[in-house]
C-alpha cells in the first residue's frame, strides 16, 4: 500500500534565520495509521508538522527545500505540495490536510456554525446536506450527545475538552485525507486527554494521522509509528514498539528513558 504522505529530504529555514530548523528530514505517513513525533521542545517537531499543510506560508520569508509528497485522490501518483504556488490550490491543500492546534480554537460563532464553516467555505449551500455532515462529524467526535440540544449556543461556552473535540469535528467535517495534531492535549486535563486519545484511535480507521506530542506515554499508547527528533534532525523513525523497546540509536534510548529532554 502506498504512503499517504512522504516527506523527503526536507530542509526548512525560518525567515531571517541563518541555520535551518529542519535538516534533511524524511518521514512517511502511512495510510490509516497514527504517526507520532516526539522529542524535546525546540527540536522542530511542530515546525515539521506546520510544513505539511504549509501553514508556515501565512508568514512570509520562510524557505523550504526538498519534497513533501501527498498522494493524489486517484491513489496512484503523488503531488509535491511544496511546488504549489496558487492560492486556490493552497486552500484546497489545507482542506485535504486538516490541523488541530495546542489549544482549542473555537471560532466566535455557534457550535453548529463552527462545524458548518468549512463546508460553507468550500461552497456547500444545501441546508440538509450541511445538517447531515454536522451531525455525523459531531458523532464521530463523540460530542453529539453532549451538544445536540444546544447547537445554537456560542462554541466558547463549552468546556476545554469539549472545545477541542469540537475542533476535531470541525476538521473532519471537511473529510480530509490527513489530520495533523499539534500537541492536541497539552492544554487539557487527564480525563479530557483520555477522551481525545480514544477518539484518535477510532479516527485512524478513516484518516491518516500525524501527531506531535511532548508526552511519550501518549505516543506509546496511540501511535503505530514514532519518529524521534532532536535539534532539527530525524534521529530515528520506526514502529512504535521498536522505538520504545529496542531503539537503535543511543540518543533515542536516553530520551525515552528520561535521561534528558
Amino acid at each position: 500500500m502506498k504512503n499517504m504522505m512522504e516527506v523527503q529530504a526536507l530542509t526548512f529555514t525560518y525567515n531571517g534565520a541563518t541555520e535551518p530548523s529542519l535538516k534533511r528530514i524524511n518521514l512517511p505517513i502511512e495510510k490509516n495509521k497514527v504517526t507520532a513525533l516526539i522529542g524535546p521542545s525546540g527540536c522542530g517537531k511542530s515546525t515539521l508538522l506546520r510544513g505539511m499543510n504549509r501553514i508556515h506560508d501565512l508568514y512570509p520569508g520562510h524557505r523550504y527545500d526538498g519534497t513533501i509528497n501527498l498522494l493524489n485522490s486517484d491513489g496512484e501518483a503523488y503531488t509535491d505540495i511544496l511546488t504549489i504556488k496558487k492560492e486556490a490550490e493552497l486552500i484546497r491543500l489545507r482542506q485535504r490536510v486538516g490541523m488541530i492546534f495546542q489549544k482549542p480554537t473555537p471560532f466566535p460563532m455557534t457550535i453548529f456554525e463552527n462545524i458548518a464553516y468549512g463546508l460553507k467555505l468550500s461552497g456547500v449551500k444545501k441546508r440538509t446536506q450541511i445538517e447531515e455532515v454536522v451531525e455525523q462529524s459531531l458523532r464521530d467526535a463523540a460530542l453529539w450527545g453532549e451538544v445536540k440540544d444546544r447547537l445554537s449556543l456560542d462554541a466558547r461556552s463549552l468546556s476545554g475538552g469539549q472545545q477541542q473535540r469540537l475542533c476535531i469535528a470541525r476538521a473532519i467535517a471537511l473529510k480530509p485525507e490527513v489530520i495533523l495534531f499539534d500537541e492536541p492535549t497539552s492544554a487539557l486535563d487527564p480525563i479530557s486527554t483520555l477522551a481525545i486519545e480514544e477518539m484518535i484511535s477510532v479516527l485512524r480507521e478513516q484518516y491518516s494521522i500525524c501527531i506531535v506530542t511532548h508526552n511519550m506515554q501518549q505516543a506509546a499508547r496511540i501511535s503505530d509509528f514514532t519518529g524521534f527528533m532532536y535539534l532539527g534532525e530525524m534521529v530515528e523513525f520506526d514502529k512504535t514498539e521498536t522505538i520504545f523497546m529496542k531503539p537503535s540509536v543511543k540518543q533515542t534510548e536516553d530520551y525515552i528513558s528520561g535521561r534528558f529532554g
Partner: protein
Amino acid sequence: MELIFKKLAQLSASLVFFILAATALVLYLSARPAIEEFGLGFLFESRWGVEETRAQPVLSPNQVVDEMPVIDEQADALLDDDFIDDEDDFVGDDDDESSGDTRIVYGALVPIVGTLFSTLIAMFFSIPIAMGIAVFLSEIAPKLLAKPVGVAIELLASIPSIIYGMWGLFYFGPFIAGIFGGNTVSLLVAGLVLGIMVIPFMAALSRDAISTVPDMLKESAYAMGATKLEVIKDVVFPYAKSGIIGSIILSFGRALGETMAVAFVIGGVYQFVGKVTDPTNSIPVVLANSFAESSGLSLSVLFYLALILFAMSFIVIAVAKFFFLRRK
C-alpha cells in the same frame, strides 16, 4: 503615617467623583434660569436670540403656566454675577409676573442638529478608513512596515485638535468646496475634518482590539482553507467585536464634544442646513464663540447647552463602558 497615607489616597480618589458631581451640579445651577425660562422645549426650538412677543412662548407640556418667569427682572438679577447664590430668588420672583412684554427666545435645536450631523458625517467617513488602517496594520502589512506606521498613527492621534481645525480652514475647506461647491466652511467640511481627526484614534484602538485575537485561532481558520477576507470577516471581527465597537463609540464621544477642530470650519451660523455644504453650528462651537460676550439669561442659556452636551457625552461613554468595554 500608614493611616494618613490611606486617607490621603482615599481623598484623592473621591476627588474625581466630587469633580464630576460638582460639574453636573454647577452646570445645572447655572443653567437653571434658562431651564425655567424655556423648559425642555429649548431642545426643539430652532430660533436663537430672536425677540418675540411673549404671548406664545414655547413651553414643555409639563410646565405649569404660572411658573413662567419674567425676563426683565431676571435678566437684571442675573447681571450682578452672583446668580448662582441667588437661585432661590428666582422662584420667589416668579410670583410677580407681568405678561404682554417681549422676550428673547433661545433654542438649542440648530446646534444640537449640527453637532449630531457633523458627528455622523465624521463617523461615516472615518469608520471604513480607520478599520482599513487597523486591518492593514494587524493583518496585511509586513511587520517591517506595520511597526513604524503604527507608531506614526499613534503619534498622529496626539496632535492637538486645533491643528486639524486650522488645516481645515485654510486647506481642506477650499479643497472640498472645489469639489462639491458651496462654502469653504460648512457642515460637510466640519464633519470631514472631525472624521480625519478621529481616524488615528479609532484606528489605534481598533488595531489594539484586533491584536488580541490569538494567532492560533486565525491559523486554524486558514488551516480549514479560509482566505484572508474570510478569516477577518468570520473570525477576527467577531472575536474583537466588543473592542472595535467600543473604539467606535469612544471616537463618537470624542467627535461629539470636539470644539477646536470644528470651530474653524462649521461657520458658526444659526441656521439649518438645506444642503450639507451650508454652514451651521454645533454646541461646542456656540460655547466657544459666545461665552465671552454673554451675560444674564444668554449666559445661562449657554450653560444649559453645556449641560446638554455633558449629558450627551456622558450617555455615549456610559454606553461604551457598560456594554462593550467591560473589564473582565
